[in-house]
C-alpha cells in the first residue's frame, strides 16, 4: 500500500444529497404514509392475528408464494434465451420483435382473461388441453404478462456485456454451452436475479388474472385483501394480510440481495453477431414461446375485426364514438390522449425518482451505517411492487386530505400512483449499469479537476444515458397499462384507455365488446410504437459517448 488512500470522491456527497432526498420524500409521502396509516387504522381495535391461523388464509398464503415462485422460475427460464436471441443476435426485424414483446405486458388483464378463456374453454381452440380454470392456466397467463420484464431487463444487460471474456474462453477450447454456463450467465446474474424478483413481486400481487383464469377456486393474499377491504370493511384482517405481504416482499428482497453478486454487470460495447449453430436451442425456445405469446394476441386481433356485419373496420371506426347507447362520456380517442399525457407524466416522475435513487444505490460507502441505509432504501423502493393497490389506494384517501397534500381529487395522483409501480423497474434497469462503474473512473475525473457535478454529469449520467432510455420506454409501458390504482383514482371526466376498456367490456352488446377489443389493440399498438421509437433513440445515442 504505497498510494495515499483516496478520500471519498466528492461526487459521492452530491449523489447522496440528490439521490437520497428526492426518492425518500417521494416514497415516504406517497407510499409509506398511506400504507402505514391503513395498517395503523386496522390495528386500532387490536391486532387480529387469528386471521393468520384461519385455514383459508394459510392456504392463500401458500398459493400466493407457490404461484409467484413457479411463475418467476418459468418466466426466467424462457425469458433468458429470448433475451439472448433478441439482444445478441443480428437478424432482420429484431428491433421490431423487441418492441413487440412488450405487448402482453400492457394488455388489460380483463381483456387477456377473456382472450385466454375463449381459447381454453371446452370447445375453444385449445379446449382439448382441458386447462380452463386450472392452476396451469394461471401459470400460462402470468408468464404471458411478465416475460417482457425478463427479456428486456436481461437483454439490456446482455447488450452491454463485453464479449471478450467469452471469446477468450472459446479460443481456449470451451464448448459454447460451457461458455454460457460458466462465463456468460454468472456475469448476467445481477440482471437475471433482478428480473426474476420483479416478476415474483408482480405475480404475488396478481389480482385479475388469478380470479378470471382460476375460475374463483384460486386466490392470493391480494384477492383476499381486496375482498376484506372493499366488501367486508374488515380492516383488522386486511391489515394483518398487508403486513404479511410486506414481510414476503422483504424476505424476497433479502434472498435476492444475498444471491446477487456484489459487483454489477460489467460494461463493454458488444456487437450483435449473426446466429450460429450453437444458438439453435435458444432460437427454438424463442420461436415456440413466441408462438404461444402470439396466440391470444392474434385471437384478439382477429376478434377486433369482427362485427355484426362480418369482417370490417367497424369496431375501430366506433372508437371515435361514445359506444353503443352512449356507454362512455367521451370518444375512445380522447381516453387514449388522456392515457398518453398521464403516462408521460408518470414516466417523467419515475425517471427522476428512479435515476436519483439509482445514483445513490450504486455507491458503496465505507461507513457500515450508510451502507445499511442504502440497502434499506433499495428495499423500500421495491415495496410498491409487492403491496396491494387496494391498501395504497384507500391509504391515499385517508392521508392525502389536508394541505399541503390535499391531493385526493387532484389529477396529479394518477401519474404518481403509476410512477410508484414504474420506479422500481427504472431502478432495476439502471442499477446494474451504475454499480459497474469503476469508482476509480470518478476518482480520476475528480483528480483531474472535474467539479463534483461535472463528475456526475460526465461519468454517471453519461454512462446511464442509454439504459435511461430503455427504462423510460418500460416505465411508459407500465404507466400506460396500469389499471388497479388508476381505476381507483382516475376522474370520470378524464378516464384512461384501460379504464374505458374495462367499462366497455362490462356492458352487454356485441358492439361494445368489439370496441373494447379494438381499443385494446390500439393500446398495444401505441405502446409498441413508443417502445420502437425509444429503441431508435437508443441507437442514436451510441455514438455520443
Amino acid at each position, binding site marked *: 500500500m504505497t498510494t495515499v488512500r483516496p478520500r471519498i470522491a466528492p461526487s459521492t456527497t452530491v449523489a447522496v444529497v440528490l439521490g437520497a432526498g428526492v426518492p425518500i*420524500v417521494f416514497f*415516504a*409521502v406517497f407510499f*409509506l*404514509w398511506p400504507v*402505514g*396509516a391503513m*395498517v*395503523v387504522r386496522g390495528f386500532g381495535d387490536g391486532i387480529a392475528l387469528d386471521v393468520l391461523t384461519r385455514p383459508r388464509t394459510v392456504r392463500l398464503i401458500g398459493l400466493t408464494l407457490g404461484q409467484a415462485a413457479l411463475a418467476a422460475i418459468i418466466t426466467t427460464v424462457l425469458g433468458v434465451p429470448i433475451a439472448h436471441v433478441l439482444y445478441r443476435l443480428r437478424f432482420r426485424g429484431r428491433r421490431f420483435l423487441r418492441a413487440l414483446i412488450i405487448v402482453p405486458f400492457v394488455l388489460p388483464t*380483463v381483456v387477456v*382473461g*377473456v382472450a385466454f*378463456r*375463449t381459447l381454453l*374453454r371446452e*370447445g*375453444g381452440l385449445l379446449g382439448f388441453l382441458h386447462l380452463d380454470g386450472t392452476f396451469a392456466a394461471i401459470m400460462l397467463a402470468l408468464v404471458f404478462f411478465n416475460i417482457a420484464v425478463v427479456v428486456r431487463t436481461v437483454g439490456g444487460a446482455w447488450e452491454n456485456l463485453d464479449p471478450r471474456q467469452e471469446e477468450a474462453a472459446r479460443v481456449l477450447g470451451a464448448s459454447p454451452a460451457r461458455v454460457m454456463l460458466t462465463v456468460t450467465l454468472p456475469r448476467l446474474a445481477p440482471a437475471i436475479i433482478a428480473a426474476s424478483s420483479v416478476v415474483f413481486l408482480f405475480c404475488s400481487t396478481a389480482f385479475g388474472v388469478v*380470479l*378470471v383464469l*382460476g*375460475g*374463483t*377456486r384460486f386466490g392470493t393474499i391480494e*384477492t383476499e385483501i381486496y*375482498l376484506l377491504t*372493499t*366488501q*367486508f*370493511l374488515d380492516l383488522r384482517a386486511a391489515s394483518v394480510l398487508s403486513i404479511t405481504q410486506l414481510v414476503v416482499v422483504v424476505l424476497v428482497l433479502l434472498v435476492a440481495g444475498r444471491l446477487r453478486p456484489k459487483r454489477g454487470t460489467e460494461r463493454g460495447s458488444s456487437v450483435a453477431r449473426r446466429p450460429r449453430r450453437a444458438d439453435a436451442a435458444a432460437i427454438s425456445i424463442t420461436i415456440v414461446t413466441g408462438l404461444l405469446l402470439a396466440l391470444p394476441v392474434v385471437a384478439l386481433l382477429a376478434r377486433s375485426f369482427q362485427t*355484426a356485419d362480418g369482417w370490417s373496420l367497424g369496431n375501430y371506426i366506433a372508437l371515435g364514438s361514445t359506444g*353503443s*347507447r*352512449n*356507454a*362512455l*362520456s367521451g370518444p375512445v380517442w380522447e381516453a387514449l390522449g388522456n392515457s398518453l399525457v398521464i403516462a408521460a407524466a408518470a414516466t417523467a416522475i419515475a425517471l427522476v425518482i428512479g435515476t436519483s435513487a439509482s445514483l445513490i444505490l450504486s455507491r458503496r460507502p465505507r461507513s457500515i451505517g450508510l451502507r445499511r441505509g442504502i440497502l434499506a432504501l433499495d428495499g423500500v423502493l421495491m415495496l410498491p411492487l409487492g403491496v396491494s393497490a387496494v391498501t395504497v389506494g*384507500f391509504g391515499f*384517501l*385517508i392521508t392525502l*386530505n*389536508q*394541505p*399541503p*397534500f*390535499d*391531493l385526493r*381529487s*387532484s389529477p396529479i395522483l394518477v401519474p404518481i400512483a403509476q410512477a410508484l409501480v414504474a420506479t422500481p423497474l427504472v431502478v432495476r434497469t439502471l442499477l446494474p449499469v451504475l454499480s459497474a462503474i469503476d469508482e476509480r473512473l470518478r476518482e480520476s475525473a475528480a483528480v483531474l479537476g472535474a467539479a463534483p457535478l461535472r463528475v456526475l454529469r460526465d461519468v454517471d449520467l453519461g454512462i446511464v444515458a442509454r439504459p435511461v432510455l430503455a427504462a423510460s420506454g418500460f416505465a411508459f409501458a407500465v404507466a400506460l397499462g396500469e389499471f388497479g390504482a388508476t*381505476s381507483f383514482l*382516475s*376522474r*370520470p371526466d378524464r378516464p384512461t384507455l384501460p379504464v374505458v376498456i374495462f*367499462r366497455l*367490456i*362490462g*356492458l*352487454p*352488446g*356485441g358492439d361494445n*365488446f368489439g370496441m373494447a377489443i379494438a381499443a385494446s389493440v390500439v393500446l398495444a399498438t401505441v405502446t409498441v410504437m413508443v417502445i420502437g421509437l425509444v429503441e431508435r433513440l437508443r441507437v442514436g445515442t451510441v455514438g455520443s459517448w
Partner: protein
Amino acid sequence: MQHHIRLAAALAVATLSLSACASADAPAANGPADKLVLVTHDSFSLSDGILEQFTEETGIEVEVQAAGDAGELVNKLVLTKDSPLGDVVFGIDNTFASRAVNEGVLEKYVSKDVTDAEAAYLLPADQGGEELTPIDNGDVCVNVDHEWFAENDLEEPVVLDDLIDPKYKDLLVVEAANSSSPGLAFLLATIDAYGDGWQDYWASLIDNGAQVDASWSDAYYVDFSGPSSEGDRPLVVSYASSPPFEVPEGSTVAPTGALLDTCFRQTEYAGIIAGTKYPDDAAKLVDFLFSPIVQNDIPESMYVYPVNAAATLPEGWSDFAKIAENPFSISPEDIDANREQWLSEWAAIATP
C-alpha cells in the same frame, strides 16, 4: 409507522410545497356553494348537458368523483368520515345501505319530491329510510338465449327450481358472489327464495353443472351462447336490461330474454354526505337526481330503470326489457348482518 408518518409530514412541509398549488377551495362560511362534489360508483354516467342544467338552474357546478363499485363507495365514505370526499353521494344500493347508515356517513334527508308512487322504493325507517332517496333500480335475472333453446328443441326454464333440473344440466353460467355484484345479487335471490335451504339449492346447482366465473364479462362474453358471445351455455346471470342490447338494429325480435321469476332487485340511492358545508345546496342536487330531467336520461346512460313514476322509458324498453313483478329482496339490515357468513358458506359450496 408513527415514525414514518412524522418523517413524512416533516419532509412534506419542507420540500413538496410545490404541490400545494392544487390546494382545496375551502370557503368556511355557509353561503351558497360554487361547486358541489358528487361522489358516485364508477358506472355513473349521464348524457352531456344534463348536469349542466343543474348549473343553469342554481349556478352551482357539479364535479363528479367516481369511487369504485357500490361496496368500495360505501367503504370509502366510512373511512373518510372525518374529512368527507364530497357533498352528495349517488350509488349506494340496498346491499350496502345499512352499513352507510350505521356508520353515520349520511345526513338525514330524503327528497321532498318523493310521492306515494315511489314509496315502495324507500328503505325501512332505521335502515336508510330517512337518509336515502331512491334514484334507479335494476333487476339481476337469469338471461336466456332464445335461439339456443329453439334450435335444441328444449323448453326454456322458468323458475329457480328448473335450474337444478337435470334437463338443464351444464347450461348455466353464474358469477362468483364474492367477486361480482350480479353474482352477489343472484346469491341473495336464492337466499330469499329458499331461506335456510339455500345451501342445499346451491349444492344441487353445482351438481347440475353450473359454472362459476369470476366476473360478469367472463360469464357473459366467454361462456354465454348469446349472439355477441363466444360460449355454449344458453343461461347466464345478467341484468334484466341486457336483452335490448342484443336486438339487432331494425329487428323487432329479441334473441335473448330475462327469466323474470329469477330476479333480485337492486335499488340505488342518493344521499347527502354528513359533514358537507352546503347541506341546503346538496339537498337541491339530490332533488335534481330524482327529477324527470335526470330520471329520463338514466335508462340510456346507466341501463337501469328510473324510480320516478313521472319518468318515461325509451323506445324498445317496454318490449325487450321487462320488469319483474315479484322480484326477490332481502332487507339491507339482514344483508349487512349476514354478508360475511353467507359469502363464506357460499364459497365453500360453489368454489371448493
